[in-house]
């Protein structure tokens, strides 16, 4: 195929212990390390492997946000993507708006495959890939742990609650990836230098004429209810007694 589109979202790094702001307006992001959403990194790795097997010619990474998201796109280019597009938007888009932006780019780029993370680790929505597939009127294969391309279709193994489900989808299609699909490569210094010369186009979101859809308003953030530390027992007899005491055995 000619082209694979991959989404890279800039999110709070997964190692950061997230804290809710005292005024409940969001979570602390000042001075916090930001990274590519880990699932998106896996999506890009898979796209690069497909290209390296000779099954695709170009991998284009896309992000939506402010100019700071260029950082994550550059990392994607250093990993091996050929080209980057930043859709510049001051407002944080909800999944439907993001899906509509991707649909506009799919049309522009004539992409045959879009590979995305199954969810972003900030909003944990797990919606965008499915929404893109819906408005594109194309197949979706979510939670992928194995992807085999053959001609105009793909066989995708999906991690579902009951086990591993395999679906066959015609291309073009949207695939969202799960953790066990692959292990993303590390970026080496020479690749970072090379990535600086790769094209990164900045596209104002207004140019795409996308309607973000009806908003779901964020009213307030709060820390989760915490569990309290319980009792310690000394041995199995103490454990059995404590379980009996709670009426659990």
């Amino acid at each position: 195929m000619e082209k694979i589109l991959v989404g890279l979202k800039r999110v709070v790094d997964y190692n950061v212990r997230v804290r809710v702001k005292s005024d409940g307006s969001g979570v602390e992001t000042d001075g916090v390390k930001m990274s590519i959403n880990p699932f998106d990194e896996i999506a890009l790795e898979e796209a690069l492997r497909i290209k390296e097997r000779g099954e695709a010619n170009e991998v284009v990474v896309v992000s939506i946000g402010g100019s700071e998201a260029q950082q994550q796109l550059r990392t994607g280019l250093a990993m091996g993507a050929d080209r980057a597009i930043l859709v510049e938007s001051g407002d944080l888009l909800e999944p439907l708006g993001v899906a509509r932006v991707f649909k506009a780019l799919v049309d522009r780029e004539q992409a045959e495959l879009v590979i995305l993370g199954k969810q972003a680790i900030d909003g944990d929505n797990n919606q965008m890939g499915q929404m893109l597939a819906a408005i594109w009127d194309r197949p979706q294969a979510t939670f992928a742990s194995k992807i085999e391309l053959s001609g105009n279709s793909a066989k995708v193994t999906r991690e579902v609650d009951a086990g591993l489900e395999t679906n066959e989808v015609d291309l073009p299609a949207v695939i969202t990836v799960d953790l066990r699909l692959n292990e993303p490569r590390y970026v080496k210094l020479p690749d970072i230098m090379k990535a600086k010369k790769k094209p990164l186009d900045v596209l104002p979101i207004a140019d795409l004429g996308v309607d973000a859809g009806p908003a779901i308003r964020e009213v307030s953030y709060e820390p989760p209810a915490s569990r309290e530390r319980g009792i310690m027992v000394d041995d199995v007899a103490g454990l059995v007694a404590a379980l009996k005491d709670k009426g659990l055995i």
Partner: protein
Amino acid sequence: MSKVLIIAEHDGSELNPSTAKVVSCAAEIEGAQIDVAVFASTAGELAAQAADIQSVAQVLTIEREENEHLLAATLAPQVVALSDGYSHIFGPSTTFGKDLMPRVAALLGVNQISDIMTVLGSHSFKRPVYAGNAVLTVEAQADQVVVATVRTASYSAAAGGNTATISAAPLAVDLPTHTRFIDLQSGASDRPDLQTANRVVSGGRALGSSESFDIIYKLADKLGAGVGASRAAVDAGYVPNEMQVGQTGKIIAPDLYIAIGISGAIQHLTGIKDAGTIVAINKDEEAPIFEVADIGLVGDLFSIVPELTDAL
């Protein structure tokens, strides 16, 4: 008045308990009329099970050959065709619901609310974000249909004993053929299903091998418990991924959870926060799992677990 349509999850013969949990959530919307849609190739038995759930007003059956396997691409246009007149469309936040509901939402031109954990009003809900490290209150627009998934660990299944009416809802919708089911490989086991078991025993990386997991299975069988594992144990290849408990695996809420050789990474704790009683057995007394455990025991799991199994 709110009218809620719930999309039933099933495996062709049994209704998944997630359906009755979604009903519990919907029943918290004041004065809501709750209908359950059963998409299947043969819906009879499944519809009877859905009609038994308390608070359900009506069960709608949509029988089509294409509904033998519940694929989002074929289900979504049917759900949309059925959605007229409903103010809310709910599904479980299992892999089934997560796959399907955003596709429905996008076809209806709305955003979706993921993982409802609390109902504050007909258009106001709480949901976890940042792997459960924050809880977000959201408000949907009153003039738009609310499409949502329900965090099943936050609700217990609605009781049975109802006799809702069952009627066929034939839909004239053309369905795509671009997505085809090939097979499902399940790690079929006789043990209780991890997501619905009242008791769960989980093992972590400290087990050291898949053979050592035997002591976990033995304890679980003695308790009639489901078996889970930490992500570290799954990544190490001791057990298959469908056993993973945590933010990146299954989020569960059993009455009793026993964590064995699990240190308690945040992502694991996120998956068990709603458990009734958490028991932790770990040789490291500094392990974060003890900060959330109701009962803790420090020691060597390889001697404690067999001893506990014998003592029960």
